[in-house]
């Protein structure tokens, strides 16, 4: 396993990791997290606390380390330094409370499984080693597919699903876990308009039920509409906080730096969008 030994020094955690004053647990607290590939840091001293029960957008340019951040949180890649607390404990301890939606491109969709099989994978941890997937698990998976609106496609081989349907399948796989914190890696990437709306619906539904979702997002225009809280990332955390205060042109400029030559265009697009609403 890639788990680095967990140092037990809670004293160094930000106070919020234990209690944010409102009594609710902090779903995800990252402190001083650094990850390096071949000695070159990808994310550097990243730290933030996610507020419970909100929808959080993780925004930043390509190569800013957004996916790396999520993977490091889940111990999928080794961390050079830093601590991660999920609901106040290690990821390993609370992983059953976390649902993960990887990037759609990360798997081979020609794989000989049906949509239902993929969703059932979300239950493998609960089912346990060497035990078969039973009927009740398949029913759960079918329900989850129904929740994302493709219940009738359960038995399709996954290559016969459209991109949006594949993304919904991945989402259903996370939903079936009934987690409290969802980590989603670009669920909106290259999906059709209807799927985008469906995902937004699901996110809002999750929020209503008190769940937290941290979503890597690329489309700056929709950030204020979809999310309550935003983490602007470019190797370091440039800014974080409620969207209304944090998602400013100034901060975006800092996040995207010289790379955001399109900034004016985006602003223009946002203005146009607002006027059209």
């Amino acid at each position, binding site marked *: 396993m890639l788990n680095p030994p967990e140092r037990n020094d809670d004293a160094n955690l930000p106070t919020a990791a234990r209690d944010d004053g409102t009594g609710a647990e902090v779903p995800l607290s990252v402190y001083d997290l650094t990850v390096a590939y071949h000695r070159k840091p990808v994310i550097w001293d990243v730290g933030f606390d996610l507020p419970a029960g909100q929808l959080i957008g993780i925004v930043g340019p390509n190569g800013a380390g957004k996916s790396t951040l999520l993977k490091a949180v889940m111990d999928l890649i080794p961390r050079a330094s830093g601590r991660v607390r999920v609901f106040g404990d290690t990821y390993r301890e609370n992983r059953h409370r976390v649902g993960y939606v990887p990037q759609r491109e990360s798997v081979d969709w020609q794989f000989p499984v049906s949509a239902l099989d993929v969703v059932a994978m979300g239950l493998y941890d609960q089912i346990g080693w060497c035990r078969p997937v039973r009927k009740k698990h398949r029913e759960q998976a079918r329900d989850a597919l129904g929740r994302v609106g493709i219940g009738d496609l359960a038995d399709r081989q996954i290559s016969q699903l459209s991109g949006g349907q594949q993304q919904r399948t991945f989402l259903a796989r996370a939903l079936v876990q009934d987690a409290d914190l969802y980590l989603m890696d670009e669920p909106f990437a290259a999906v059709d308009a*209807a799927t985008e709306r469906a995902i937004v619906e699901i996110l809002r539904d999750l929020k209503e039920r008190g769940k937290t979702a941290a979503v890597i997002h690329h489309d700056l225009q929709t950030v204020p509409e979809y999310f309550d809280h935003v983490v602007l990332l470019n190797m370091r955390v440039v800014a974080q906080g409620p969207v209304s205060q944090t998602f400013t042109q100034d901060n975006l400029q800092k996040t995207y730096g010289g790379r955001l030559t399109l900034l004016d265009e985006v602003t223009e697009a946002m203005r146009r969008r607002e006027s059209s609403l």
Partner: protein
Amino acid sequence: MWHAKTSRRNALAGIASCDRGVQLSRGLWLLALLTVSATVCHARGRPSPEASSQSAAFQWTDSQWGRVLLMKDYNTRIVIFGVAVLGGASGLVGSFTLLRKRALMGDALSHASLPGIAIAFIAANWFGGDEKSLPWLLVGATASGLLGVAVILVIRNQTRLKEDAALGIVLSVFFGAGVALLGVIQQMDTGHAAGLEGFIYGKTASMRAADARLIAITSLIVIAGCLFLFKELKLLCFDEGFAGAQGFPVIALDAGLMTMVVLVTIVGLQAVGLVLMIALLVIPAAAARFWTETMWRMMLWAAVLGTGGSIVGGLVSALFPGLPSGAMIVLVCSVFFFVSMMLGTRRGVIIRLIRRMRLNRRIDRQHLLRAMYEQLEKSSGGPDHPGLAERTNRRISVSLDKLLSMRSWSRRRLSRAIERAVEDELLRIQDGACKLTQAGFTEAARLTRQHRLWEMYLIAYADVATANVDRDADKIEHVLAPEVIDQLEDLLDEQGMTIPVPQSPHGPLGTGETLGTGETLDGQGVDADGYAGSERQRDASGGPQ
């Protein structure tokens, strides 16, 4: 042979009827294959002319043949059993490695085992042990095979070389070293190195019952491992990131899979030979993929094909000590593969061609009927004209040239489409011109209506359309079915359009210009009928093919 022919006919019929009888045709195909294989073996087993002139040799060959095939000999029986179990295990493990995209690891592993075998042989000779003791040789093979894999990982991780380069280097260097060591052994006084060649090309004839038992037991362990860890390995192969996030130890699972590959490869060396061991790991799994979209079925088929190939190959090699079993197994497996590639009911070449052809025919028919309908509209003075009905239809026939000018289709293609429509009694030909039959008129009206509803839909809800269009072309009817059509009918009603067949949204019909602009609109993605639309959908989304 009669049996094989019948099965083939049945199998083809099964494929033609697509989903019906798929199971049956699969079973029959396997039967047919085994029959053909057996016939081939029989032909090969027949004595050559020289042999038949010497009756003693003939009898010897004949009795040997019967003895082997009927497995009267205990040794043969157990050897074939061992090889069969090995084939099944290879099919299972091979399916996982194929899906994990690590198929070639097995090849590197088996090639890298040769120097280990040679060194174990030399060492045993040196210390005066039994240099042909199989377990001892296999220990050497395992050690050097694993060393080879380790070197691959080191090269991959420590240099900028990619895995394929590392595989190539290790595979050739280790194999070369092994061949050199075999040369050294030939020079040694003992001169008993002949048996070692069996490890390179495989030789079931030289196997003993104890060896076969070792193979069978190891293979059964591997089969059990594959079955118990099916769920976990499936997840690993499909989505290792998610497996890790779920808390499954990805590295340990990979190591477990690799261990099973090692076990199968090492015990398979004697039966199949290290050069061709990869065939037994890859070919059955790859062949099985053509028949199914379900993982457990794929594995079942891989196991069956692996077992079949091993039995036939092993039998032939047991019969003729001169024929390496590895080569025979590969040949039999490649027949399986070729047949699967062509006739596979899910991904086979022929079924794909048939699907494509059917789709094209359906599209042609739709275009033809719609073209006819549009001509009727034109002749009756536009869609709003009350005269457009069966009565008008009776009077009007459309010439081939007219139809030809409406679309960019070749005369031959159009005539074929017309021929097929006539066969299905949708069209009649009178004096070289086409006329819709009653059924044809109904169908044409339905298609035109559907087509225009679809156009309305695209125009009114372009962004929704991209989502709701199913990629599967056959399902287009479902897309336009109940709710959407209701919605669209409401939409059309608001605009005061005639519901039976609404006017084309891209300009007035019944004028010469419309026919001319039809193609342009096609190109713009507005004038899409269901099939073309969903094809475009597929392209636009850039999804997997």
